């Protein structure tokens, strides 16, 4: 009885102890989200000086807004291509980093450099490298004059390249962590059975890596879907909005046009997309964990 009472007391104490962090979280995470949702139900344009409740009016307009759909398309394309390429490149990179060779520690640290540079800085560097006249990229391609950031077909791919360069090391480290969780015994057994290295990779490494890969997918796709800084520095969404993502559209509407209602509606729509994405990945991740 007394043991139970002390447990009860401990539980109450635990609630008190987490209460401050819950409060802080509510203040910094929950409140802004709710405020954005509330704003998105208003017509609120600073320069008109008006603010009135219009229910779902902004969302009705959004469903017919060609610019929104094009931004959504750009964002989805960016996310799918960037994350796929990053994963495809990260797995071999992680396998390489796992091997024991002299200077491995140094290499492991070195691959993180792109990840460590602030995106705005690296995007600025890339913008100059993409410069069609004096940039490094066209020179490396043998004096081409590809208009990387000014031509509609190229600009989004240039942005994807910057993102891949920046985040592949991060994904590789996540995968590396997964690799290190695979018991060495399994590989020994496979060697005893005379499995080829391809077979070992397919039957042992890849299946056991699945949770790590899904985790990387989760992190990266949520991140890529909200991409803002690199593209804002590279192209500001141009040419002709072909690189405009949802975040950039929302930012311009909120901060340049001062249209807080519709801008918030765009943010809420972006948020909803990200939540759906997160739920799907978490489901898959849960299933992968169970399957182990």
């Amino acid at each position, binding site marked *: 009885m007394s043991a139970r009472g002390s447990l009860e007391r401990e539980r109450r104490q635990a609630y008190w102890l987490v*209460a401050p962090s819950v*409060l802080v979280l509510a203040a910094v995470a929950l409140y802004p989200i709710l405020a954005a949702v509330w704003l998105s139900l208003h017509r609120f344009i600073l320069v008109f000086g008006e603010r009135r409740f219009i229910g779902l009016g902004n969302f009705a307009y959004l469903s017919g807004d060609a610019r929104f759909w094009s931004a959504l398309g750009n964002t989805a394309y960016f996310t799918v291509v960037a994350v796929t390429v990053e994963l495809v490149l990260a797995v071999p990179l992680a396998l390489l980093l796992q091997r024991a060779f002299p200077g491995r520690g140094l290499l492991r640290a070195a691959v993180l450099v792109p990840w460590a540079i602030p995106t705005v800085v690296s995007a600025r560097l890339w913008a100059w490298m993409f*410069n069609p006249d004096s940039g490094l990229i066209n020179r490396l391609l043998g004096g081409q004059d590809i208009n990387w950031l000014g031509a*509609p077909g190229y600009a989004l791919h240039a942005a994807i390249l910057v993102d891949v360069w920046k985040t592949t090391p991060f994904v590789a480290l996540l995968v590396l962590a997964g690799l290190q969780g695979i018991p060495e015994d399994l590989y020994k057994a496979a060697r005893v059975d005379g499995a080829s290295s391809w077979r070992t990779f397919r039957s042992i490494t890849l299946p056991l890596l699945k949770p790590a890969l899904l985790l990387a997918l989760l992190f990266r796709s949520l991140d890529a879907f909200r991409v803002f800084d690199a593209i804002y520095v590279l*192209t*500001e969404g*141009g*040419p002709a909005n072909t690189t405009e993502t949802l975040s950039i559209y929302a930012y311009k509407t909120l901060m*340049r046009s001062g249209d807080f209602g519709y801008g918030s509606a765009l943010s809420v729509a972006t948020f909803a997309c990200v939540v759906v994405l997160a739920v799907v990945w978490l489901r898959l991740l849960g299933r992968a964990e169970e399957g182990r």
Partner: protein
Amino acid sequence: MARSLVPVLALALVVGLQSGCRRGSDETRGAAGGRTRLVLKYQPLWGPPGPFHELLSRFEQANPGVELVTEALPNASDLAHQFFLTSLEGRARDFDVLVVDVVWVPEFARAGWIADLSEAFPPARLREEFLPGPVEAVVVEGRTYAVPWYLDVGILYYRTDLVPRAPRTYAELERFAREAREREPGLQGYVWQGRQYEGLSCNVYEALWGHGGEAMEGGRVLLDTKPAREALTYLRGLIAEGVSPGTVTGFSEEEARRVFQQGRAVFMRNWPYAWAEAQKEDSPIRGKVGIAPLPTVDGEPGSGALGGWQLAVNAHVSPERRRLAEKLIAHLTSPEANRVLALHYARNPPRTALYEDSRLKEGAPFIAGLRELVERARPRPVTPYYNLISDVLQSEFSAAVAGLRTPEEALRRAQRQVDHLTGEAE
């Protein structure tokens, strides 16, 4: 122990949030040592700090009760706009005098963020003393909301060693570029700003005026017109016919300047800042550059887009502070201040008389020589909704220039969206 801490933490949080919301309401009332603190928000002027500080301290000497404080804004116009949007909408009172970009004045005035200065600076007097372009930008519906501080204007740079003289018409520009390129293959013709950003809108409006068009008609931003179609057709044609390289669709000012600076282009549209760079010791084009008004379709000297900054007063400050703020603006926009900014910071004076000033002619002959160009400078559409619609303008202009849509289609789309956005205001 843990339990007693919780309410304290919660209280701290609540207090913190509240004082966060009330930011700025107390600070301004504070008078340091009995003196009133007057805050000027401006963008860095770049250059030796001495002369500007001297200008400010002269104001303090003349007004012993005032402590003048300057606070720097981000150097990007976009970020400065964002700052004012959030702080002025939040009724911040922690700054008194602020700089506003030439396209913001009607917006800030309409939103009630900047004070009506018509009594201290009657529009009629501004018209007498200042150049017509800047005055048009700061007088909204007959009332003064800001005073021009310094200005910028789009101009044509040309290579005196490659062409006989500055081109007066578009046809001449194309012909001169073609002839120069025939003599020197590998040379580019005309570089300008075609990237999707505000600079593109400046280039398009210049072409529009050059085709005899007007940006506004009776309060409506006019886009789907014959001159506008001709302007976009002309700009697209420059690229399609090879007069301008295809890469201009990714150019802002610096990309264009670099090509021109390296001696690889015959013509460039840019702001006056590129002159000093072109005349540097190690510049390959030193002494081979001329400037001229932009060409037009009929050979009349063209109008460059007006850029630059104005000084305004935060509408939320008290009447006494407003009077002091007006005094500060008068001081900072005086002929003397105009001269300091021109001589030490290469900022072009908005006061007409300065262009005849003997000290300016001697100390900054290039600026004095811009007179003909600054007199013709014209603001982009003067409307409170400019920032609301500038996104639409940029993306549709970009689509036409990049060849993604025909000028007709781009302008039709732009007009529809702009009418939708501004029509709601009625």
